């Protein structure tokens, strides 16, 4: 039996796995049992798990179907990875319209989580660039979904966490590029206020912006970090670096603790001497720095880790982020992978889409049991009071009460849920 796991490696998975091999042949589903489509397991928590039933693995649906290199429109099967799309489209002058921080997610996974990237302030979410897809329901119905056809299913499936049926293929619109290089500027900034100034100044001029935050810094240095802004470069492409690292074994305990965290963050912040640093780099290190270390999630040891990502509406963004960062810094429980970004105001078609116009913070927490859970529950309260929400794709523990307040529209998704589809996440957050 195949064992699949979520990226945070908690909870531990034990579901039987069914494989879907050909898009025109739906596999026989186990009678009287729920299923959940599973792509490449990059969701952090339990939104990609179905402990009470089976997983329907769709990675074998990995074929490209059509690529219009003139118009920049790509159709491919559900299990094709973004990395596999990039290998074909970049040499022909196209790029993904939106990309998350890893290229190892599938087409259907990108839709089901309505993923976002460093260009959200300009281009919205992945769902904003989906033209159509096929949704297969467990009763065998095949629905072609687009903004014009079956719009209710189209909207509910974007950000729908695999609950409305199984996507077998999809079509997206790409963006034109001249080269595979990115002109990147890294700006060292001193505190949270400076972040907001830099974001306001840069979001009009740069399609890609994001900040790495030193989540161990406190007091007047709270929120300090490196602000990165970039754009696709003009001119010629250059070959990618072949450097590949991996975390081949699982250490018996988490390598991330208070001491290593403080030391790493201090060094990473001070590594950049100048206030501003300009460089021209390949798109892979710009968008996917962590993909260079395969299985990096193992550094957190056998207990796994949580990721917390919240979005706070623009009106309350600064004070709420201030409070959240203070609580995290005080706890000493954070990790070195903390990022801060401003979302734009482009609405997504996705019914349960996470981004809202405002600020978003994402960071990892090694699993230290109760202490970690308590801290995240406190952060939920701050997020809720500020009118924000928490990202289901990263979550393994938010309460049903909070979920219903973050996403009051969840009942609309529940109404369109395929009766045979469910997830551990969905059962947990809808158990009111």
């Amino acid at each position, binding site marked *: 039996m195949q064992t699949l796991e979520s990226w945070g490696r908690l909870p531990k998975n034990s579901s039987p796995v069914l*494989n879907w*091999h*050909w898009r025109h042949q739906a596999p026989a589903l186990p009678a009287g049992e729920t299923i959940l489509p599973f792509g490449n397991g990059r969701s952090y928590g339990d939104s990609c798990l179905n402990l009470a039933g089976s997983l329907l693995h769709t990675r074998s649906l990995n074929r*490209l179907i059509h690529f219009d290199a003139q118009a920049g429109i790509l159709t491919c099967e559900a299990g094709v990875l973004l990395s596999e799309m990039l*290998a074909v489209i970049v040499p022909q002058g196209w790029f993904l319209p939106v990309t998350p921080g890893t290229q190892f997610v599938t087409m259907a996974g990108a839709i089901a989580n309505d993923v976002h990237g460093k260009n959200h302030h300009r281009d919205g979410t992945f769902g904003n660039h989906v033209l159509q897809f096929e949704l297969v329901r467990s009763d065998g119905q095949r629905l072609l979904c687009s903004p014009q056809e079956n719009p209710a299913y189209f909207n509910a499936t974007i950000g729908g966490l695999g609950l409305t049926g199984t996507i077998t293929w999809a079509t997206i619109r790409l963006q034109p590029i001249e080269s595979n290089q990115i002109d990147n500027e890294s700006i060292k900034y001193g505190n949270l206020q400076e972040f907001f100034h830099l974001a306001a100044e840069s979001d009009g001029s740069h399609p890609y912006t994001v900040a790495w935050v030193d989540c161990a810094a406190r007091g007047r240095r709270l929120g300090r970090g490196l602000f990165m802004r970039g754009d696709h470069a003009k001119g010629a492409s250059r070959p990618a670096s072949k450097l590949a690292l991996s975390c081949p074994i699982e250490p018996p305990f988490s390598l991330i603790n208070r001491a290593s965290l403080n030391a790493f963050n201090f060094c990473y912040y001070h590594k950049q001497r100048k206030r501003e640093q300009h460089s021209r780099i390949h798109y892979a290190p710009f968008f996917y720095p962590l993909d260079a270390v395969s299985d990096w999630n193992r550094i957190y040891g056998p207990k796994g880790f949580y990721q917390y990502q919240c979005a706070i509406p623009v009106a309350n963004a600064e004070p709420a982020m201030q409070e959240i960062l203070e609580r995290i810094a005080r706890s000493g429980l954070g990790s070195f992978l903390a990022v801060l970004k401003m979302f734009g105001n482009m609405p997504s078609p996705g019914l349960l889409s996470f981004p809202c116009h405002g600020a978003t913070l994402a960071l990892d927490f090694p699993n230290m049991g109760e202490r970690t859970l308590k801290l995240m529950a406190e952060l939920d309260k701050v997020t809720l009071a500020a009118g924000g929400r928490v990202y289901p794709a990263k979550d393994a523990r938010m309460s049903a009460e909070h979920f219903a307040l973050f996403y009051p529209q969840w009942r609309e998704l529940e109404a369109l849920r395929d009766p045979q589809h469910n997830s551990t996440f969905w059962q947990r957050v809808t158990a009111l």
Partner: protein
Amino acid sequence: MNILILGASSAIAQAVIDGYVQRGATLLLVARDEHKLRHIADDARIRGAQQVETLCLDAATQGASQQLEHWLETLGLPLDLALLAYGSLPDQAECQTDLARLAQAIEVNFTSAALLCSLLANRMAARGSGTLAVISSVAGDRGRQSNYAYGAAKGGLSLFLQGLRNRLHRHGVKVLTIKPGFVDTPMTAQFDKGALWAQPQQVARGIIKAVDRGQDVVYLPGFWRAIMWVIRLIPETLFKRLAL
């Protein structure tokens, strides 16, 4: 580089196709199911294959070799590599009682494969170059009660290839016998998977490497060579008592 793949929709064949697409090869793909064939061919074209031709054919039907020959004749492309990747794993218990099922298992895994290999070998010999790579199985290395219908067909195929290799050596044609162990594919979907199981991508990399090196016989993954060596060493008087 022109590559013919028989059984193009098998999981191992698809992974091999991916590997040769990256080298910009011309692919001649043969499979039974026209939908699957189209899905694979479209994918290969978009990913960068030089040219892709397809033939919908069931190798185990009467006249299959004539159809294949006619198609190859029409295309007129000299073959650098032909990979025979189809096969079917029958239920052993069924083969013991249902003789039609046994005949079918032997037809698919041995007879049809031997005919197509002969056809391809003759074409390659006439040209004086090419590699014929055929997926046999470790199951053909020794007969076991749990799997001897399939094992005998694959064992026969391995022996056939050995003879072919001996014959074609002086014509400059290479024959590669591929012996995979347990591979996680749709053919083995109903089995529980343990530590000995390999992924089709891993086996495909091994096939491409063995073709590049011009090897005669390759076990994939390589540790099966050692396992099968031990299994072949067990004396028959003892082996017949084992529950294998």
